[in-house]
């Protein structure tokens, strides 16, 4: 197991190197001069030269790449050209929201998708099955941003003045503040402390933060703000998970051991849960792992619709503003996250199915 893990990590290195190379090339090929993009069209040649020198843009491209590689290996993503702040700091500010949104979406998708898939496999060709599959097919065909806009229209405008009203944008109602847990607990952590970025990262997940500080007002408000984006974001993964669960269950339910279990007189619920579902789980877990990519791409669209300042929206803004360091840093982190998610899925196989040997 350990050996396999180490080998898998080593095997990921060429891919990670490729990711760095592609991101670097893309970021450097974005047309337009970053100096003029940041300082405006009226920046003089001298000012631009100094700007290039300050940001290392005057060195030959291979050397720029080597410097960039070295910095990334030491965890330094450089400084945003637009904000003049370290990319890592910006990332730590933006990531909690995207992470919170993504986790809620994948949680909802799994929680609803798997039971629906199992149900439609067990009641194959019944009304439940047909409705679920029509729904799932419609779900994967919907543009995320359209669904988001329609949900916002329905819940924020049509259902206004009803208990079902939900806010169409933002993270908290104006006037409400999520007080970080380390302040509530009086830990004495200040922005100068070494662990500040870490605690601030978790404090920025408003739902988690308000949960551990027992701040029910902020909790209910942030949950309300999160429902619509999470709903929009979870639709496609939900549909994919439901479809995969159904086809995987259908395949398993035809196996001899399922028939044997039934013939032995095992209760149907146990047959489904223990004999069939556990064996159908591998492809389902694989497909859930693959959804992280969909979620990040969806986050770009969802965050821009619901006015959320997360990683996706920042990345999009950075691309249009030619802020290379942010584009590079964020893309690399997202791609690495994707590689890690798939590694975790691979490593989970032996736990789900003891017959799987990793070697």
């Amino acid at each position, binding site marked *: 197991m350990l050996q396999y893990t180490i080998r898998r990590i080593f095997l990921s290195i*060429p*891919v990670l190197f*490729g*990711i760095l*190379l*592609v*991101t670097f090339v*893309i970021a450097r*090929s*974005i*047309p337009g001069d970053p100096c003029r993009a940041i300082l405006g069209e009226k920046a003089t040649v001298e000012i631009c030269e100094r700007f290039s020198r300050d940001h290392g843009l005057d060195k030959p491209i291979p050397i720029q790449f080597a410097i960039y590689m070295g910095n990334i290996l030491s965890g330094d993503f450089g400084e945003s050209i637009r904000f003049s702040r370290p990319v890592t700091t910006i990332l730590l500010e933006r990531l909690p929201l995207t992470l919170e949104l993504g986790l809620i979406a994948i949680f909802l998708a799994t929680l609803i998708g798997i039971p629906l898939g199992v149900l439609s496999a067990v009641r194959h060709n019944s009304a439940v099955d047909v409705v679920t599959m029509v729904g799932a*097919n*419609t779900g*994967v*065909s*919907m*543009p*995320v*941003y*359209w*669904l988001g*806009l*329609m949900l*916002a*229209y329905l819940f*924020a*405008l049509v259902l206004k003045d009803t208990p079902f009203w939900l806010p169409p944008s933002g993270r908290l109602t104006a006037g409400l503040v999520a007080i970080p847990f380390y302040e509530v607990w009086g830990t004495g952590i200040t922005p100068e402390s070494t662990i500040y970025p870490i605690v601030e990262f978790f404090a920025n997940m408003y739902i988690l933060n308000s949960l551990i500080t027992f701040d029910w007002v902020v909790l209910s408000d942030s949950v309300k703000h999160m429902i619509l984006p999470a709903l929009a974001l979870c639709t496609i993964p939900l549909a994919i998970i439901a479809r995969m669960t159904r*086809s995987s269950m*259908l*395949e398993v339910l*035809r196996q001899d051991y399922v028939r044997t279990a039934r013939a032995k007189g095992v209760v149907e619920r146990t047959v489904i849960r223990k004999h069939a579902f556990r064996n159908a789980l591998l492809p389902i877990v694989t497909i859930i792992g693959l959804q992280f*990519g*969909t979620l*990040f*791409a969806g986050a*770009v*669209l969802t965050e*821009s*619709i619901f006015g959320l300042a997360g990683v996706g929206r920042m*990345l*999009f803004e950075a*691309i*249009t503003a030619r802020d290379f360091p942010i*584009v590079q840093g964020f*893309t690399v982190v*997202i*791609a690495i996250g*994707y*590689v890690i998610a798939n590694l975790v899925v691979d490593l989970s196989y032996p736990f789900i199915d003891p017959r799987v040997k990793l070697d």
Partner: protein
Amino acid sequence: MSSVTKLKESNTEQDYRSNSLWRLTLRRIWRQRSAKVGGSLLGILILIAIFAPLIAPYDPEEVLIGKEDVRKRQSPCIHLLGCPEDQPQHLMGIDGNVRDEFSRVLYGAQYSLLIGFTTVGFAIIVGTILGLISGYYSGWSDNLIMRSMDVLLAFPSLLLAIAIVSVLGPGLQNALLAIAIVSIPVYARVVRASVLQVKEQDFVSASRALGASDRRIMFVRILPNAVPPLVVQGTLGIATAILSAAALSFLGLGAQPPTPEWGTMLGSERNQVFTAPHLVFYPGLAIMFTVLAFNLLGDGLRDALDPRLSQVRE
């Protein structure tokens, strides 16, 4: 006389054989419910795209100011649903630039289908060549090609497409190119898998023993085996390509106004969703139906062309 009869016989036999293979496949596809629904939807869409100039009551870019008594972003007026007869009928209302939304949505079908077929066509051609080389020659070329494909697959595809468009500059053509590049790895993998499956089989060795060139073996002997999975993957790929292209246009990176492209139409009216929801609703609905048609057809094709799966599903 006898030779003529023989010729005729062999002709009919050949006709019969090719006919039956095609017919068998088509019948198998048509037996799938999802293929039937998807195929019919797609048929309707293709008809709409072809006959848009005949069906559409207005030109999609015609501004109606001064020509009709209509307001900017006016709600739909349908005579059957009680809209006064003396007012001009606009089934999907009027857009932000005082154009007939219904006509624009109809013309949008042309763009969507064009986007789907060209991007996937391009990706299939490049992916097939890469997959063939990679699977047939193995060794370093295989390693190089497949690792590059792994790198492309390591990025969420829409993000990579956004990044590529930002390099190439916004516009429909560049968006199509970006989506095509991003979709290449899938097809390369599908073709490579098929090549590996058949390249050691007897009919390939026989062809090689007869002195056939590598190119002939690859394209004439091996490639036909990859066609069924390519068709399935391609149909599902068109669905994804249309969704991605619409997303890029929505973000302002794809087709530019006044092009009646659904994603662009949605994007330019997104801030008006609370005041003129119809301008967001209809283009999105159109995207959904088109993508749904390809998804259903792809599902049906997969069930029909892959006997292992169809057993499970039937």
